[in-house]
C-alpha cells in the first residue's frame, strides 16, 4: 500500500513538473522551427546565388519594421534580384510588438546586424556611430525638401527617407461641392469659417475634431511648430528657445493663429455639445458618408474612410490656416514627415555588402520596377520628387501633389511625453475646461520640464 502511494506521488509530481515545463517548451519549439526555417531559407538563397554567378555574389539582409508590407518587400527583393543577379536581399521581419530599435540593438549585440534596417526616424541617431554615410548618393538631390535634415549627424547623412505621411484638414469633396465651396481657395481662417458656415446651411456639420491626445498633441499642435519656418534648422531654433524659456509660446503669432482657427473649428465641431466624448473610431463614418465637410487627421485614415465612402474617392487635404493673410507660410503648406527611415550598417557588413545595400536604395528611387514596388505595391508615399507614379489612394495622392509643388512643411515629431502632456492640455481647451492662458501655461510646463533634447 505504502509503496503504491509512493509510486503514485512520484507520478503525480512528475505530471506537475511536466505541465510546468510544457509552457516553456512550446515556445522553444516555435523558436526552433523558426530558426530552422530561416536556416533552410539561407541555404536556399545560398544555392541560388551560387547558381546565378560564380563570382562576387553578395547577400544582404533588410530588417523590415512595417509588418503589413512584408510580402510586398519580398516581391521587391525578388524583382531586384532579377535585375541584379549578383545581389540577394533577404527581408527579415521585426517581431510583432517588438520595437525595431530593440531588435536592431539585439542584432548588433550578436554581431549579426542587417545591411539595411528600417527604423522610426527618432531612433536613427542612437545608432549613428555604426551607420554608413549616404551623403554622396544620387538620391540626395531628389529628396523632398527638408526630408533629410533630421538624419544629418555631424555632416554625415545616416538615413534614407523611406515613407512619408502627412496630416491636416481632410475634406470630402462631395459635401463641399454641394455647399458651393472650393477647397483650393481656402487659405485664411476667415475663408475656412465661411466654408463651415456654407456647409452648415446645407444641414451638415463643418468639421470633426478627434479628441484623442495623440491627434491634438502630436499632430494638431505640432502644426504650429512646423508652420514657424520652412527650414528645419529654424524650427529647431524655435523649439530650443521654448525649452530654454527664451521664447514665450504665448507671444508667438503662428501658435495664436492656429488656436484662433481651432476656436473656429470648435464652433462648427460635429460633437460641439460634448466634444470630449467623440471617438476616433466613429469619425471615419461621419466624414466618409458626408455628414461633415472636414476632419483633422492624416493619410493613414484612408482605409477606414473608404469603408463608408462608397464610390466617392474625392477626398483631399487643405492646410490648417494660421492667419487671415493669404501669403503666410502656414496657410499654403501642409505638414508632412518621414515616418520610416532606412539605415545602412557600416560596422559589421563588408564593403561589398554596403555597396549592394546602396545599390538597392538607388534601385528603389530610380528604376521603374523599384518605384512601382514602393508606390503601387507597398502603397507608400515616396519622399522623392522624381517619382511620378501615383499612389492609389486619394489622401496619399493629395500629399504627393503637395510634395511635388514643394508645399509641404517639415512635420515635427516629438517624444511620447510631448503628445501626452500637450494632448491633455489641448483636451482641456477643447472641452472648455481652460482658457488660452492656462493652455499656454501647460505647454510651457512641458517645454521647461527638460524632456526635449
Amino acid at each position, binding site marked *: 500500500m505504502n509503496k503504491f502511494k509512493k509510486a503514485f506521488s*512520484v507520478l503525480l509530481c512528475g505530471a506537475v*513538473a511536466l505541465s*510546468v515545463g510544457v509552457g516553456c517548451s512550446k515556445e522553444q519549439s516555435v523558436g526552433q522551427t523558426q530558426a530552422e526555417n530561416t536556416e533552410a531559407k539561407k541555404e536556399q538563397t545560398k544555392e541560388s546565388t551560387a547558381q546565378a554567378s560564380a563570382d562576387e555574389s553578395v547577400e544582404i539582409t533588410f530588417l523590415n519594421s512595417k509588418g503589413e508590407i512584408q510580402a510586398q518587400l519580398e516581391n521587391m527583393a525578388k524583382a531586384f534580384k532579377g535585375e541584379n543577379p549578383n545581389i540577394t536581399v533577404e527581408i527579415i521581419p521585426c517581431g510583432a510588438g517588438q520595437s525595431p530599435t530593440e531588435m536592431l*540593438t539585439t542584432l548588433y549585440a550578436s554581431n549579426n546586424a542587417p545591411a539595411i534596417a528600417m527604423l522610426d526616424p527618432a531612433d536613427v541617431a542612437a545608432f549613428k556611430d555604426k551607420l554608413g554615410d549616404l551623403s554622396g548618393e544620387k538620391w540626395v538631390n531628389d529628396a523632398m525638401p527638408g526630408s533629410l535634415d533630421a538624419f544629418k549627424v555631424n555632416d554625415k547623412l545616416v538615413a534614407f527617407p523611406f515613407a512619408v505621411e502627412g496630416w491636416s484638414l481632410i475634406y470630402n469633396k462631395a459635401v463641399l461641392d454641394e455647399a458651393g465651396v472650393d477647397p483650393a481657395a481656402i487659405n485664411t481662417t476667415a475663408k475656412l469659417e465661411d466654408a463651415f458656415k456654407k456647409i452648415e446651411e446645407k444641414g451638415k456639420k463643418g468639421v470633426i475634431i478627434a479628441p484623442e491626445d495623440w491627434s491634438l498633441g502630436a499632430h494638431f499642435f505640432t502644426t504650429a511648430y512646423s508652420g514657424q519656418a520652412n527650414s528645419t534648422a529654424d524650427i529647431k531654433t524655435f523649439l530650443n528657445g521654448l525649452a530654454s524659456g527664451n521664447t514665450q509660446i504665448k507671444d508667438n503669432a503662428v501658435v495664436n493663429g492656429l488656436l484662433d482657427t481651432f476656436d473656429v473649428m470648435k464652433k462648427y465641431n460635429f460633437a460641439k455639445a460634448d466634444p470630449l466624448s467623440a*471617438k476616433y473610431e466613429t469619425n471615419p463614418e461621419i466624414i466618409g458618408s458626408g455628414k461633415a465637410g472636414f476632419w483633422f487627421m492624416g493619410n493613414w485614415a484612408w482605409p477606414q474612410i473608404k469603408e463608408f465612402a462608397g464610390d466617392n474617392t474625392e477626398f483631399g487635404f487643405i492646410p490648417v490656416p494660421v492667419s487671415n493673410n493669404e501669403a503666410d507660410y502656414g496657410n499654403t503648406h501642409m505638414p508632412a514627415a518621414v515616418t520610416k527611415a532606412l539605415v545602412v550598417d557600416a560596422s559589421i557588413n563588408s564593403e561589398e555588402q554596403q555597396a549592394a545595400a546602396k545599390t538597392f536604395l538607388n534601385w528603389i528611387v530610380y528604376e521603374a520596377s523599384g518605384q512601382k514596388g514602393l508606390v503601387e505595391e507597398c502603397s507608400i508615399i515616396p519622399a522623392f520628387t522624381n517619382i511620378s507614379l501615383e499612389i492609389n489612394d486619394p489622401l496619399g495622392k493629395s500629399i504627393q501633389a503637395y510634395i511635388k509643388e514643394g508645399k509641404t512643411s517639415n512635420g515635427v515629431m516629438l517624444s511620447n*511625453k510631448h503628445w501626452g502632456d500637450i494632448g*491633455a492640455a489641448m483636451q482641456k481647451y477643447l*472641452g472648455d475646461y481652460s482658457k488660452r492662458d492656462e493652455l499656454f501655461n501647460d505647454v510651457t510646463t512641458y517645454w521647461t520640464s527638460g*524632456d526635449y533634447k
Partner: protein
Amino acid sequence: MKDEKNFFSKFRTYMLFAGPVTLAFFTVVIIPFLYGLFLTFTNWDGVSANYMIVGFENYRTIFKDAAFIQSLGLTFKYVIFTVLITNAVAFTLAAILTSGTKGQSFFRAGFFTPNLIGGVALGYVWQFVFNNIITYFGKNIGMTALQSSFLSSPKQAFWALVIVAVWQYSGYMMIIYITGFLNIPKDVLEAASIDGAAGWTKIKNITIPLIMPAFTISVFLTLQRTFMVYDVNLALTKGGPFKTTELISMYVYKKAFTERAYGIGQAQAVILFVIVAIISITQVYLSKKKEVEA
C-alpha cells in the same frame, strides 16, 4: 552521518513534493522581483542595451513629481469610495438574499455574473453605456444633466470608474458575505431574539461580529484589486479626459513604457508595492483581532 542522511532525505522529499512549485515561484516571482528592484537603481530606458547605476536618484525624482503624488491621491480616493460602497452593497445584497426572498438563487447568480466579464470587455461595454445609452435617454426625456457623457467631464469620469468597479465586485463580495451569513449558528440568533435584540441591534451585536472573517477577506480583496486596477481604467477612460483619471497603475505604466523612463517607473511600482503591502497587512491584522468564535 545519520543527520546528514536525514537532511538529504528530507530535502529529497521536499524537492519531490514542492520542488516544481518552488522552482516556478522563484523563476516567475522572486527573481523578477529582485531584478526589478535592481532596475530601480538604474537609468535604463526599457530598450537600450546599456544603462548606468544612478543610486537613489529615481526615488528622489519620484517625490518631486507632483503628478505622481496627485495620481496616488486620486487612487486613494478611488480605493476608499470603491471599498466602502462595494462592501456596503455586497453586505446588503447578502443580507437580503439570505433572508428567504423568492428566487434568491437566481438573484445570487445574477449579481455574481458581472465578475465573470473581463475588465477590458467590461470597460468597453460601460463606455458605450455612458457615451451612448445614457446620453440617448437624456436627450429623449429632456434631462440636461444626462445629455453629455459622464466620461467627458473630469469629476463624473471618476464616479464612472467607481460605479463600474462597484458593479463588477459587489457580486463577488456578496457571495463571500452569503457564506458568512450561512455560517452563523441558528441558535445564537434565536437566543438573541429571545433576549429582545431585533433589527439593527441584532445585526450590529450578533451578525457583524460573527461574520468578521468574511469582512476580512472581502475588504482585503477589494483593497488589493482596486489599488492595482488597470484594465477597467484603460478601457473605460484611458486616463482621460486630460489625464484626470489616471490611476496609479496606469501612471506607472505610462512612465515606464510610454515616456521610456523604465527605472523611474519601476521605482514607482516598488513604492506602490510597499504602500499596498502595509495597508493590506494592517487591515488583515486589525480585522483578524476583531474576529470572534460563536
